């Protein structure tokens, strides 16, 4: 099961975080910092999978953006690895070439995309069109 998804920049600042399991606020900040540090300290020659305390981290780097996903031990690493790629591709399509700024300024849209892709901590949708369909409909509704 997916526990959380973080998007951080190269300085380790959180740009987006989504928790699928409630974590106490005090603990969360510390954990987030440790997790990010753990991922950022790895070089490109090391693999994208790290064991961290009682869960696993899967991360990918896209230029200055790191996407880090924390999963339980039963989760398949490869599927998460692909999920990240898929997620970034979806963002790319939605924002037509995504940049960090856009993610921050349109937090709610990103969250809606995440909601479509992951529910209850499980991957539920991978088709890009289906993921984006509700969001486009909602946007139209808001504009109209």
């Amino acid at each position, binding site marked *: 099961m997916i526990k959380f998804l973080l998007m951080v920049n190269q300085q380790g600042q959180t740009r987006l975080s989504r928790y699928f399991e409630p974590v106490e606020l005090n603990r969360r900040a510390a954990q987030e910092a440790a997790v990010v540090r753990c991922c950022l300290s790895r070089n490109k020659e090391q693999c994208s999978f790290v064991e961290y305390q009682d869960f696993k981290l899967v991360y990918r780097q896209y230029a200055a953006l790191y996407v880090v996903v924390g999963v339980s031990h039963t989760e398949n690493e490869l599927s998460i690895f692909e999920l990240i790629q898929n997620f970034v591709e979806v963002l790319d399509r939605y924002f037509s070439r995504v940049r960090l700024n856009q993610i*921050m300024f349109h937090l709610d849209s990103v969250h*809606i995309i995440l909601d479509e892709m992951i529910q*209850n901590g499980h991957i539920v949708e991978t088709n890009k069109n289906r993921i984006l369909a509700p969001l486009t409909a909602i946007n139209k509704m808001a504009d109209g």
Partner: protein
Amino acid sequence: MALKIVKGSIDRMFDKNLQDLVRGIRNHKEDEAKYISTCIDEIKQELKQDNIAVKANAVCKLTYLQMLGYDVSWAAFNIVEVMSSSKFTYKRIGYLAASQCFHESTDVIMLTTNQIRKDLSSPNQYDTGVALTGLSCFVTPDLARDLANDIMTLMSHTKPYIRKKAVLIMYKVFLKYPESLRPAFPRLKEKLEDPDPGVQSAAVNVICELARRNPKNYLSLAPLFFKLMTSSTNNWVLIKIIKLFGALTPLEPRLGKKLIEPLTNLIHRIYLFFSQILHHLSAITLVCFSWLIAFLFFITVLISLSSGMPNHSASIQLCVQKLRILIEDSDQNLKYLGLLAMSKILKTHPKSVQSHKDLILQCLDDKDESIRLRALDLLYGMVSKKNLMEIVKKLMLHVDKAEGTTYRDELLTKIIDICSQSNYQYITNFEWYISILVELTRLEGTRHGHLIASQMLDVAIRVKAIRVFAVAQMATLLDNAHMLTGNTQRNGICEVLYAAAWICGEFSEHLENPMETLEAMLRPKVATLPGHIQAVYVQNAAKLFATVLKSQEGNTDSTTAQEASQLMIDRLPLFVQSANLEVQERASCILQLVKYIQKLQQKDVEVSEEVCALFAGELNPVAPKAQKKVPIPDGLDLDAWINEPPSESESEDEQPKAIFSKEEPKHSRPRHTEVDEKELARRREARKQEQANNPFYIKASPSSQKVYQETPGVEHIPVVQIDLSVPLKVPGLPMSDQYVKLEEERRQKERAEKKKKDKKKRKEKRSGRGKKHDSGPESEEDITPAHMVDIVTEEMPENALPSDDDERDPADPHKALDIDLDKPLADSEKLPVRSHRAAEVLKSPAEDEEGENVSSLEPKKKSSKEKREKKKDKDKDRKVKMLFESGLSEAKSSKHKKKKQKREKEDKEKKKKKKHHHHHHHHGDKGGEESVQNGTVEEEEPLPAYDIQGNLQDGSQVVVSVIFENKCDSFLKSMEFNVLDSLNSKLQRPEGSGPHDSLTIPFQLPPGVSNEARFVFTVQSIIMPQKLKGTLTFIVKNEESSTHEKLDFKLHFTCTSYLITTPCYSDAFAKLLESGDLKSSSIRLEGVNMPFHHLLARICFHHHFSVVERIDSCASMYSRSIQGHHVCLLVKISSQTVSVDAKCDEPTLLGNVLDEIKQTFSQC
């Protein structure tokens, strides 16, 4: 001036949106915290505004701040406000914030129930969607129970988008409210065959997730999944199903046979696919991940197959070979995934992986820690008796080389895991193992001291043959204790001394020189160890002392014995002064004992026997689960009180005592910081003395001595001895390596001997060739243990209960979902349909009487008054549901008198207006009628009463919908419904019928069936509650006869049920109050013993109010009647008294509503 500032900030707050906040934070890198705190102040201001757009904007910013780690729980109520906005854009922001910030213990969640229900039933599918998504993040058991039925309805929504979401959220609902699983399961099952692939895969997802935890309950679904598997083209769905079959096949072997064919096809398909791709690609790169996915999928299939299926060893072999290519690849991700897949295969086919040991060991040298860890996992499954020593030797090398304590700790635990797995199955030489453990103690800074310690204890206790050796080793360890404790960084490892001391004490008869060990255990330095270790030292010193006395028994020269006593008497006082109570207590007991013994010794009395008796008897290992498995003797009720619990007032009196005793039991693991001044001084003294006695101690120069005294904080850091951090050989300890060599020699010798024997045998008997192991590499069984080892099994209680090893973690929420799904649904298993929360309705005596006055044929009815509305619903009709259930069974002997079991449940709903439907349930208790038969009285148990829910449509109409349920085994037909009209309320009858005519119910009820009918009532005035009496007549038909029956009931229209929840903003609310049109009234509720938010939720829920504003322990609430009366409440709580000040433009209505509120609280 101040005004100006306020004005300025108000101007700013209107245009600061999320973007500005983000930019602002970025521009204030230097003083980010300060900037954010001003932002939060602004947001607080914005939240006080009445404009919902401003609020939504503020909540949006809060969501961002929450993400940055700021606590925004104070705004929870505002989030609820934004959630309830009618505009989707804002609602979405509200739900997003809620899904981020709310969790189970957020109390305002209670207030959201009705809002969420409204959104769930919204005509706009995105309203529903956003509510479902949000709900999945913060669903609580209460929400799950209240909304389960609504969500279940959504599973049949016309829009696939909603269906999919509803199916997914059901999983969370099951976890939080396991009772919902059975009622909802049939519909969930239907969704497996949904035309929309998204819904279908959602259903597969949910069911597979459920089935994975409790497979046996889902066996009956196998045919359905089988069909899906052969028809589905969605790979993810296929993987899920195959995994599910992997869990099911062990339970039902026949399944495996059936699966062979389709799975073989599948494998073949994928195999072709992946071999083709492989063919084209000489170098595998990350780009071709689809290949990898297919490949790993292939492995998944194979593995799930292999559990209940014939061998696919050829394909497994092939897989492993391909995996090897992956692992040898330079891409680290591929390497990792390859190792991971390999470890999956290892579980089912250890043999095929074991041949790649070289590769795995090579991976241990990888520069990436993640990869090394995976390789370690693989090693665990690869060891055998033959290669254990070799592998562990390699690992020990890695331990020495490893950088970073985490990895080293991981190695350490792995070594111990590998060696101790399946009850030390692979260890042939325990001397070797003990020396490995001793070597491990030299690890610096490990956290796993107590793991090593417990292994030492375990081996020493359970392997009797090794004790002599173990004791010798431990004695050396104790002697060199300073090596372990010398460095503060090594503190974790000093746990080992605990084991060492205990082993030396307990098995002291094996000690070569107990006197020396005794001396080692009583060194003053021991006092720097943690308390629990000191305690063991002291206790075991006493054991050693006993052994020394015993060994000197019969010896004419008693000097040794006396020396021992003197040593004890000299050293023990150090421990008597210990700050640790455990140490102190033991030390002073033993000290007095030894003093007494010394006296006896001086009189030449033989004491050794008596002293030894103190520690006689052997301690046996007890299995960890032994206690749990002790069967409970008959007649023992563990839940019964032994002594009645003291009343509350008593316990208050005792409080001071309790506080006192609480302080005591902290002694088990004291920290050095607790040490007081005196103790410090004493220790300093002791240390000085020690230093003086220690020839190796380099005395501090006078100047540094000064510094030392000026900084008392440093004092309890043990003064550094010359620390040789290079791994030292503990003198006298054999190295494990020697054992490897020795073992090798031994095995060779054995082999040679065996060969000789075999030759002999062969000579003697030519047919003896049949023996399994006469040539070739030695097989597992050939390796004989170096010592005859008897591994004592852990003790279990006599007549232990049969093993239940699959015990799961009690905290696992899936445990509650272990529910038999094939049993037909019982009547009691219904999802709560917006009903009265509880059937524990109070019955007023008056009503009971009333019930009894009705003729004996009519079921008694109770409780019309106590319908309490549970849920406020906003825009629905009012229905009265009447669950009518009549069980008629003819008494065998007497025909004219029937034993009837009737139950009736009425759910009433009243309603006005055409469009909305609102359920309103009444619970009515109907005692069954009594029938006297052969002198026995049979009485029907009371039923959960009836439910009301109501809602408004137009000012004068109420729709009552009634559910009739036939609970008997006979057929019910010709049902007619009639109500005695009052002046105020009339049942609407078809045109042309008279005012007292019955309405025919347009259906019949076969046994066990329920159906719903609706009736419209016209209501004139709504300011008074009222009851309508009615009768239902029907014909009960069974094989022999048909009888006419009648059932009386009452419909109760409370004033509350005329109210509908209407949100109101605080500005409108204030205006309303100021208008002066409202009459006021108030009530006080005493002894309300619930948290304020519960109280509010209860009022909202039962009486259809909504909270306008809440400040601390004071809240304003609003509701509106169907005829447009405003009802405003101001609720305050202080200690246990609640005062409700109310205003309404209709005083009678207000009075009645307040009475009803009062009643609600008098019932809880």
